[in-house]
């Protein structure tokens, strides 16, 4: 029973539910209270103790159903033992069951597996597969490429070697029986394949997901395939949440500074100046202010898409974000992003200014004329773009003025350093006025860049 629960916890982790040792102990205690007999109550108990959110509950519920759908010989077999047998029976079949269910031709001299197959006792076979699967530690399966290995391991554990020998002997002695055995063996292989597939579905999800996320994290944002966009969005949101967690807490802790003697005395005047209530000096800190300028022209649209999404998921850390989008002229998009769902917002922004050919000069000019006053000495300006201005006047002088008015100017360029300055790239001219200019082509680089920016306000 214990063993079975542990395997379920692993499966739960595979389904993305975080199960710490302490939680598993709680779950064990809960299960000890409700017992195994009622599947529905068992499910409720596990969901209550393990899942920590509605999403996790759903995932865990599915996982539970999948897990306990495994062969259940115990239900159909007469109860021979009183102790708690796990729902998915793991014990090897007792010799008695093989024979009394059979009624087939004499099978003397054959190995146990052959006898079992010929007797066509489905329950016994299912139980044998299950016990062989645990002997082959099927719960270690991680990748779909391991299917073959695990199948053959399970078959080995069930004694397929002996069965082959038996088959060889029978082919000569009793061809019809050999034929039956061969058919049964086919069925067995199929059943084992199913078991392995199920194991893969149960235990491999987490690894597969991690791997996929890892690949996604390092994939160039600009070249994400449409079907991956949703996953990428989820990843970006996850990144935003992590950044938020990391930077929200210390800010509050550091608030408290030295004792503010004046305010303390004033507050405690009622008690004759005996300081019952203390007042503390607050450390002065900059409120993060970010102004983001995003190039949404065709070539970099996808990257700025994700970038705007990240900036706006972060607005809990950063109180004051204003976003602007441009390709040949520039507009403010803060309101669009805040009042719409990400997808709708992106579509609206793209329809307004997107996909044009980029003109950095006139866009910067727009910014200087309309929004220069938003910049204060606390503002970090982030420009996201490839700095390819179609050989138009780059107006680097405006960028210099922006840089002078703000705290920092960060340029994130989806292109690699190697190509800066080649073709119509004006990056080297712009880079001289930037506090930081770096490549930002993958989710990971995006995360690092934003993390550094927020960290500088802590």
């Amino acid at each position, binding site marked *: 029973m214990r063993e079975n629960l542990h395997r379920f916890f692993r499966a739960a982790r595979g389904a993305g539910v975080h199960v710490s040792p302490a939680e598993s102990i709680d779950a064990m205690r809960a299960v000890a209270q*409700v017992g195994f007999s009622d599947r529905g109550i068992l499910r*409720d108990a596990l*969901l209550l103790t393990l899942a920590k959110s509605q999403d996790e509950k759903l995932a865990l519920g599915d996982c539970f159903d999948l897990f306990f759908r495994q062969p259940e010989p115990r239900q159909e077999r007469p109860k021979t033992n009183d102790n708690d047998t796990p729902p998915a029976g793991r014990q090897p079949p007792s010799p008695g069951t093989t024979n009394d269910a059979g009624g087939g031709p004499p099978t003397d001299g054959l190995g146990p597996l052959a006898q079992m197959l010929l007797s066509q006792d489905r329950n016994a076979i299912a139980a044998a597969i299950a016990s062989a699967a645990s002997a082959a530690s099927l719960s270690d399966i991680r990748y779909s490429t391991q299917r073959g290995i695990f199948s053959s391991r399970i078959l080995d554990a069930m004694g397929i070697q002996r069965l082959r020998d038996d088959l060889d002997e029978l082919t000569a002695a009793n061809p019809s029986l050999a034929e039956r055995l061969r058919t049964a063996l086919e069925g067995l292989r199929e059943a084992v394949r199913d078991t392995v597939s199920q194991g893969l579905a149960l235990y491999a999800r987490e690894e597969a997901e991690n791997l996929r996320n890892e690949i996604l994290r390092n994939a160039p944002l600009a070249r994400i395939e449409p079907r991956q966009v949703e996953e990428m969005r989820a990843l970006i949101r996850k990144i935003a949440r992590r950044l938020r967690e990391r930077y929200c807490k210390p800010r509050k802790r550091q608030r408290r500074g030295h004792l503010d003697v004046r305010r303390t005395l004033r507050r405690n005047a009622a008690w004759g100046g005996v300081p019952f209530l203390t007042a503390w000096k607050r450390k002065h800190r900059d409120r993060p202010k970010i102004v983001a300028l995003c190039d949404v022209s065709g070539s970099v649209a996808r990257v700025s898409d994700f970038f705007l999404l990240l900036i706006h998921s972060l607005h809990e850390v950063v109180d004051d974000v204003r976003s602007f989008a441009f390709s040949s002229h520039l507009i403010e998009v803060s309101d669009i992003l805040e009042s719409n769902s990400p997808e709708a917002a992106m579509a609206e922004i793209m329809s307004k200014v997107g996909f044009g050919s980029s003109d950095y000069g006139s866009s910067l000019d727009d910014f200087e004329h309309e929004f220069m006053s938003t910049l204060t000495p606390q503002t970090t300006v982030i420009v996201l773009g490839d700095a390819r201005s179609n050989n138009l006047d780059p107006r680097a002088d405006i960028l210099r003025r922006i840089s002078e008015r703000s705290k920092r100017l960060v340029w994130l360029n989806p292109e690699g350093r190697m190509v800066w300055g080649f073709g119509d790239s004006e990056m080297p001219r712009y880079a001289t006025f930037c506090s930081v200019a770096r490549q930002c082509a993958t989710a990971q680089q995006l995360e690092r860049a934003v993390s550094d920016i927020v960290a500088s306000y802590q």
Partner: protein
Amino acid sequence: MADQKASTSIEAVESGLAAQGYIASRQIATAVYLSQQIEKPILVEGPAGVGKTELAKAIAAWRGMKMIRLQCYEGLDEAKALYEWKYAKQLLYTQILKDKLGEVLGGAQTLHAALDQLHDFGDVFFSKEFVEPRPLLQALEQPGGCVLLIDEIDKSDAEFESLLLEILSDFQVTIPELGTVSAITPPTVILTSNSERDLGDALKRRCLHLHIGFPEQRLEERIVESRVPGISQTLRRQMVGFIHEIRTLDLKKLPSVSETIDWARALVLLQSGELDTDIVKDTLNVLLKYEADIEAAAPHVTTFIAKAARSNVFG
């Protein structure tokens, strides 16, 4: 067998709560039963008005225990939730005892001796008598146990959660001057949250996590039956069916169980035997709380009533 007893006890919880007019789904009953058996708080999440707070009240009524409620809000802190020193009383006592103070200290020959005596004295002032217990401490001090309801924990600040951790895992609090106060009988703790903000993992891990959503049709009918006794079966079926249809719409605030009950009461008051378009349109404001929602739902009323009536025939 242990299993046997377990399932009957869950049923016992179910019937116990039902006796208080709280119709619990099996999940809720299991949660209440488990929280009892493994002494863990229950964190109840779900939309407003599905009976999260009611659950705590029902448990308290069922077990005949006192319910102590702590309503959370932004800025709630230790002094308001846990305990506070009675500063004024301390001050007053020092004033009154000033002469005594002189007597006590008068006996001392040196400054050192006086200081020693003063030290003993100080402990008197930071003793139990000068502590003002707030809900959390009160809950621990109830000799017969109690139901502690920490309502809308998501409205409090993140720091407040950390304050709760000691109470939730060990049922004790540490007051620096006094030491650790442990619960005489561990209280049954219910935390509720509308998921306004994500709660910390540390908090979640100490609780059983119960999600109460909108009930299934049958369950909701039973809830209405127990809460609004005068209602006819036909009307009950129709109105619950109608509400389930309404919940499929994309509204600002979906009607929850408390609205269902209010509506049922209103319909009984208006003495309507069954739903018809007029009466629904007149009373839609009981069910929906936004003008925009009412406007969105109004065109569907006739179809929904028809659907509810049809499901009536077959259900």
